[in-house]
């Protein structure tokens, strides 16, 4: 390739090396730990679960060596009033804010309440603004936080919007449904070691979102030869039946999931574009057998 920085394999090694560098620096006690506040807003909490599934480094390393996790409602021991006090007390120090889930805004945000503060419900809408205004950096984790995602799917009864629309400042976007643990950990490692990574025009780190799935898909040769799957289970390119790899910018084909074991196409299901703006509605149909070619089981079959 002419430009090594555009090479996905180079970026993967760079990302891996980045985290390794962060780990090594942390082991030596040279990494300046910063506070991390993780807010779960209008979503499924899938991103914190995904992060817990990370490996090399794992969540334990993140929480003990890289950051001080000040608040995370699913994992912290405190609950109720003391938990909210700890959340809001974070604003007294420097901290990075990670937000997953969209922000419900209808009825002043009463569709998503994350606690009680000053005797009244603390909505996600209010919390993200309170914590967002003083954070040194904001990371929107997962497609709901970056783009509204499933939470904002039509008809969007709760008036869900992205984090950036609410906080009114720049946000590092880490889309994905969920966000891959490496994308979060790698971005955080870069921030801790070198500062903010290079972002594309939608605020995503180029390190992880700089190339399309299509450009590194293991079935790309079938696409180029026009050999397409007619149904799920066919081992060829699933473009005709709805694969969104060609419009989705992530490194899933080479990074894979569940500690690099598998990814959707390898598991014989098309990419549904979960990390792309417009998901889910804009990526539908996820699978279709009514295509530009007749398929088995159709009226023409």
């Amino acid at each position, binding site marked *: 390739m002419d430009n090594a920085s555009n090479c996905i394999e180079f970026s993967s090694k760079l990302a891996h090396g980045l985290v390794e560098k962060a780990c090594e620096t942390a082991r030596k006690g040279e990494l300046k730990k910063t506070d991390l506040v993780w807010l779960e807003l209008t979503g499924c909490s899938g991103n914190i679960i995904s992060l817990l599934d990370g490996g090399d480094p794992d969540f334990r390393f993140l929480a003990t060596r890289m950051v001080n996790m000040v608040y995370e409602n699913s994992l912290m021991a405190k609950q109720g009033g003391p938990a909210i006090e700890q959340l809001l007390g974070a604003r007294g120090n420097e901290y990075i804010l990670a937000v997953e889930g969209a922000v419900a805004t209808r009825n002043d945000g009463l569709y998503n309440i994350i606690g009680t503060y000053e005797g009244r419900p603390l909505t996600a809408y209010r919390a993200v603004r309170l914590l967002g205004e003083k954070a040194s950096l904001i990371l929107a984790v997962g497609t709901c936080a970056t783009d509204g995602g499933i939470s904002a799917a039509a008809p969007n009864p709760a008036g869900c919007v992205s984090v950036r629309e609410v906080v009114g400042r720049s946000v590092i976007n880490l889309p994905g449904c969920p966000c891959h643990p490496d994308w979060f950990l790698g971005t955080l490692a870069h921030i801790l070691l070198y500062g903010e990574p290079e972002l594309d025009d939608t605020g995503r780190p180029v390190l992880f979102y700089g190339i399309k799935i299509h450009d590194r898909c293991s079935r790309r040769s079938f696409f180029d030869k026009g050999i397409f799957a007619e149904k799920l289970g066919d081992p060829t390119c699933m473009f005709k039946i709805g694969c969104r790899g060609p419009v989705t910018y992530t490194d899933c084909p080479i990074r894979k999931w569940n500690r690099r074991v598998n990814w959707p196409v390898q598991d014989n299901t098309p990419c549904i574009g979960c990390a792309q703006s417009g998901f889910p509605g804009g990526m539908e149909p996820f699978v279709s057998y009514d*295509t530009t070619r*007749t398929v088995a089981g159709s009226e023409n079959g």
Partner: protein
Amino acid sequence: MRFMSEAERIHGLRSEIEHSIELIKRDRNIRSRRRHLDKLRSDVNALCEACRGLLRYAEPSDAGYSPADSPEISQRTFTRAELAQYDGKSGNPAYVAVGGVVYDVTDNAAWAAATHFGLSAGNDLTSQYSSCHASQQILRNLTVVGSLADG
């Protein structure tokens, strides 16, 4: 670039056609043979379209292809009702219209299942294109198949 993409498409279609012929020869099941014949017909139609594409002359422009640039293209006119038939379903190709020009997106990577970010083939997508891709040179790389009657 358009010539190369058309040539590649023709090559791919030729492979598909040969594959279908072989399947028809070997398959004794009437239902599946009928399916192979349908696919063969679809691929032959697509091959004809691609060959027509090679015969066209077009100068690349930021605004896309103008129907007036080629007499062959200006002769093939689609009404909106005719365009709607090319929705990429039931074995039909996928066509879209932008700025009065009808483009074939059947094998365009961004149009999986003949849809693109919630838009469906078989429609005039001029306003949607302008709101999203106005500053990008995308149309020049698409295969032109005709013009829209009232475009």
